[in-house]
């Protein structure tokens, strides 16, 4: 049956409409997929200047230790994520994953140490489940609160730093994954130097009542265009970043997904806090014994895009299955089709030639290193 519940609006909904956005349903929200400039121009503008994205549909969750000690919140959260949260310094952010008992991925998220509490940003489609999962897992030790009174925007691109600097000069001292609280337009915002495009940039949590003002201030800058979900997807794909629900889900382990780097040494076998997260048996065993399939980049040799769901074969006749594409499309900066997907370990080496079944043809694709573009984070 079709879902007929009304779509939710972010605090920037009217602003999107006033900018001529084409709106689509996404994770229960009415969201801009593109503006009149179009996906191609929006994508390229983000890579050469700066773009503003509305990501207010994502979940913003506070985890506050009842003891008042941030270590207690960090250790409690470590029971749900294979991440070293304890060593995360105040004012720093780290990528994380909620795993399940079988070592699959429930969601991916950002974890911030805000001094006396943790601040989490989770995917829109998973936020209610994540919130329940956190309440259930940490509720006895921490107060878990979903923030419903804040918008979230991303400012991304090589000009992002200069643009934000005009509202708040101290931004220049921030490095990749730093998080600071700052007044933008006389409103207290939480700013992290991070994003989902492969570019330098910022993600800014803004109180709802000031969201339009701050966003409009950024959009007034001649270097800045509003960017929709269409370009957000092509930008993250070029950057080799996973989209939850496409490239990672409950059927994929962090090791299969190539996300070992998100599991710090302290949580691996022989680490000081080894294991102790859901699915640790499988995930730690995969560090030692390897996996039967891996997430890889895929570069089609021709011009035809190869999209999510397309099957991959080791031979041009389609006799030997080799894997499946999970995300694919056209990379405007690469100026050609790009994709990622899971392939059997024996086909995962960079340079391996595979064949993608598209409309009855078997198109050659090369296993390719990720990302497809050079990331330009300010480290």
């Amino acid at each position: 049956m079709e879902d007929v519940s009304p779509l939710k609006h972010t605090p920037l909904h009217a602003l999107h409409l006033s900018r001529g956005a084409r709106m689509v349903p996404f994770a229960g929200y009415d969201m801009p997929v593109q503006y009149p400039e179009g996906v191609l121009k929006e994508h390229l503008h983000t890579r050469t200047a700066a773009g503003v994205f509305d990501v207010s549909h994502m979940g913003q969750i506070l985890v506050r230790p009842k003891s008042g000690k941030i270590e207690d919140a960090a250790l409690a959260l470590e029971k749900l994520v294979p991440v070293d949260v304890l060593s995360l310094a105040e004012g720093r952010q780290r990528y994380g994953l909620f795993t399940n008992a079988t070592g699959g991925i429930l969601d991916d998220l950002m974890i911030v140490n805000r001094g006396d509490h943790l601040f989490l940003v989770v995917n829109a489609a998973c936020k209610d489940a994540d919130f329940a999962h956190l309440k259930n897992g940490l509720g006895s030790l921490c107060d878990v609160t979903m923030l419903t009174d804040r918008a979230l925007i991303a400012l991304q691109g090589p000009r992002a730093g200069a643009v934000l600097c005009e509202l708040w000069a101290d931004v220049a001292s921030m490095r990749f994954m730093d998080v600071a609280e700052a007044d933008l337009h006389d409103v207290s915002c939480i700013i992290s130097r991070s994003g989902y495009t492969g570019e330098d940039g910022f993600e800014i949590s803004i109180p709802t009542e000031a969201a339009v003002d701050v966003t409009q201030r950024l959009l007034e800058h001649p270097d800045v265009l509003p960017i929709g979900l269409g370009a957000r997807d092509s930008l993250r794909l070029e950057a080799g970043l996973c989209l939850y629900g496409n490239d990672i889900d409950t059927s994929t382990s962090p090791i299969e997904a190539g996300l070992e780097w998100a599991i710090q040494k302290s949580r691996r076998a022989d680490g000081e806090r080894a294991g102790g997260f859901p699915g640790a048996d499988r995930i730690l065993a995969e560090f030692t014994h390897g996996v039967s399939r891996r997430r890889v980049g895929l570069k089609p040799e021709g011009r035809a895009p190869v999209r999510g769901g397309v099957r991959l074969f080791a031979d041009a006749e389609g006799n030997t299955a080799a894997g499946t594409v999970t995300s694919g499309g056209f990379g405007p900066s690469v100026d050609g089709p790009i994709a990622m997907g899971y392939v059997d370990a024996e086909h995962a080496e960079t340079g391996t030639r595979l064949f993608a079944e598209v409309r009855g043809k078997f198109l050659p694709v090369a296993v390719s290193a990720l990302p497809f573009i050079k990331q330009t984070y300010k480290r």
Partner: protein
Amino acid sequence: MLKFTEEHEWLKIDGDVATVGITEHAAGQLGDLVFVELPEAGSTFSKGDTAATVESVKAASDVYCPLDGEIVEANQAIVDDPSLVNSDPQGAAWFFKLKLADPDAAKALLDEAAYKELVA
């Protein structure tokens, strides 16, 4: 004779050959095209068959054969430069020429006024 389909194709019919493309409305809805796949000359299609494929950054879409017929020519220019479909969809960016099995069948298609009403 200029005709249209509810699937947003236009046909410019000259004798028993129709030049077929997608409408300005369709091109606008699809957004920036990055790939076009056209049928080979000599191939035959029934009305409603998928005759061509267009892809934007985000998605692939089928272009249907508007009537029964045989492809006599495909427009290589839009394969070489798919953005032509966005800039001149009802002119230089025609897709293929179709030799109609039954030219009279075209009479049942929409005229320009009816199509404009459809997309209004």
